[in-house]
């Protein structure tokens, strides 16, 4: 079971002077249970690709399948299957807090489950659970207006609104854009927790390589609507030239460790690809000790 894209191409405003091809023959398979990051420069087609996975845009050519069901349906029967497949995907847009509209946080999170036709008792359970997932206290926040919250909290409410739908695939467009470092860390932490607890497949778009490096276990680098690189973060980011060609930078941590390695600190190739600051610090300490030991021995 997976998200599969076969030879997907998409053009905005075809047949006008504003015509722009956003995707060119994308072939991609996103395995269930993985955390996949789509990285790329502005205009590389990341968000367009995401909207295809959410079934909001349909390809001009090729097909998008969720668990084997084609999202672009034609017959009535196919439509039902496509709708069911679409509902497995929870889509969180960029600046998701801009979509909040209800008077209370409870009502806003309940919007989705109600649209899916759930009974009111189930809706309440879903809201409760979703708020716990995004670390908002149910009793303290349920009746507050979402517009009185801070930006980071509003983003979490919006995220809860999608989590309440119990998506098997959570798809996020720039989930940390515009958040302060603490808000960013917290949000990434929530995504990681969700993945660990529910096994939800996560697909997210980012042009922040730190985010990608921190949580993804598969990276897809897009450039001009085509896949440039794909693989494990350490392998992908090790290809410095290609990363630069895609208009991206290597993660800070990797750059730091590579620079240290170039300066003569004995770090192995694997060690330059560690993903958390704590691991990096440990690797540096070990390497320096080793080096110190050697110098002393001489």
């Amino acid at each position: 079971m997976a998200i599969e894209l076969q030879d997907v191409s998409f053009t905005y405003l075809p047949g006008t002077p504003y015509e722009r091809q956003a995707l060119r023959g994308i072939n991609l398979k996103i395995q269930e249970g993985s955390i996949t990051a789509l990285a790329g420069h502005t205009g590389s087609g990341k968000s367009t690709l995401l909207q295809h996975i959410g079934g909001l845009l349909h390809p001009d050519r090729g097909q998008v399948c969720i668990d084997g069901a084609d999202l672009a349906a034609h017959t009535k029967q196919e439509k039902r299957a496509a709708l069911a497949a679409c509902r497995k995907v929870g889509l969180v847009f960029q600046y998701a807090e801009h979509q909040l509209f209800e008077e209370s946080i409870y009502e806003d999170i309940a919007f989705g489950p109600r649209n899916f036709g759930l009974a009111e008792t189930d809706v309440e359970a879903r809201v409760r659970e979703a708020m716990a997932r995004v670390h908002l206290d149910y009793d303290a926040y349920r009746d507050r207006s979402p517009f009185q919250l801070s930006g980071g909290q509003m983003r979490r409410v919006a995220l809860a609104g999608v989590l309440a739908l119990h998506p098997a695939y959570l798809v996020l467009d720039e989930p940390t854009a515009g958040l302060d470092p603490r808000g960013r860390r917290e949000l990434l932490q929530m995504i990681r927790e969700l993945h660990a607890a529910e096994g939800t497949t996560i697909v997210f778009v980012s042009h922040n390589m730190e985010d990608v490096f921190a949580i993804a276990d598969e990276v897809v680098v897009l450039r001009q609507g085509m896949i440039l690189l794909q693989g494990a973060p350490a392998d992908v980011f090790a290809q410095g030239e290609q990363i630069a060609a895609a208009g991206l930078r290597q993660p800070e941590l990797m750059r730091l460790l590579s620079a240290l390695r170039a300066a003569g600190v004995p770090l192995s190739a694997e060690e330059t690809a560690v993903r958390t600051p704590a691991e990096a610090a440990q690797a540096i300490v070990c390497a320096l000790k080793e080096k110190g030991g050697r110098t002393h021995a001489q």
Partner: protein
Amino acid sequence: MLSNITIGQYFPGNSLLHRLDPRTKIVVLFALIVALFLFDRPADYLVMSLLTLAFMLLSRVPLRTLLGSLKPLWWILLFTFLIHLCSTPGEEFAHLWVFSLTFEGLAHGFFICLRLVLLLLLSSLLTFTTSPLKLTDALEALLSPLKRIGVPAHELAMMMTIALRFVPTLIEETDKIMKAQQARGADFVTGSIVRRLKNVVPILVPLFISVFRRADDLAMAMEARCYHGGEGRTQMKQLHFLPLDYLAWGGTALLLAVLAALWLL
């Protein structure tokens, strides 16, 4: 969904009409519309039709796009034609219920419709070949003599520029909000009218909030750049008349003179 709407109809290009000064285009359009209403003999219509056709070819805008701008007018055209057909006294050629259809009505209806079509085509040619920004610049320039009697020409133009500037942004924003709510199971297409109206709330509320936020940001940004109205303000892109413009002015004047002379004879 909404991404198929072309904004302000501007069709980028570099044709003769695109290069004409926007002030010239507005004045010439105005003169031609006046001519269209003043001179209503078949020969005059022929001249105006040929002229419009020439402009259409000169603009290099695809014929299809141009004729597409007539689409909203079909019903009005049909209605106008029928009214004229049925209500003009003259030589009757058929009788329908209480209406007598006359040859005069047929001709009259045809010419009135032709007039409307030409009117619309000429005006769309202006918006197709002139970017909204140039259009507002030209309006400001043409209105500026009226500043003396208290018409806030600059402010009007600025308001128009801002409004036009935000049309695509808001369309994009609406599109995004609609998609976000759709992703949460909202349905804007099916259901009864009441249900569908209720479903608009999740779009309108975020949209209003976003509009006010943007307005606020814009006001702040303008004040931070010391904007204080049109007094002493210069423009980055000055409008200049080119030889082409004088030719257009001359040509229009000549055409009007000839038509007027023929009319008086």
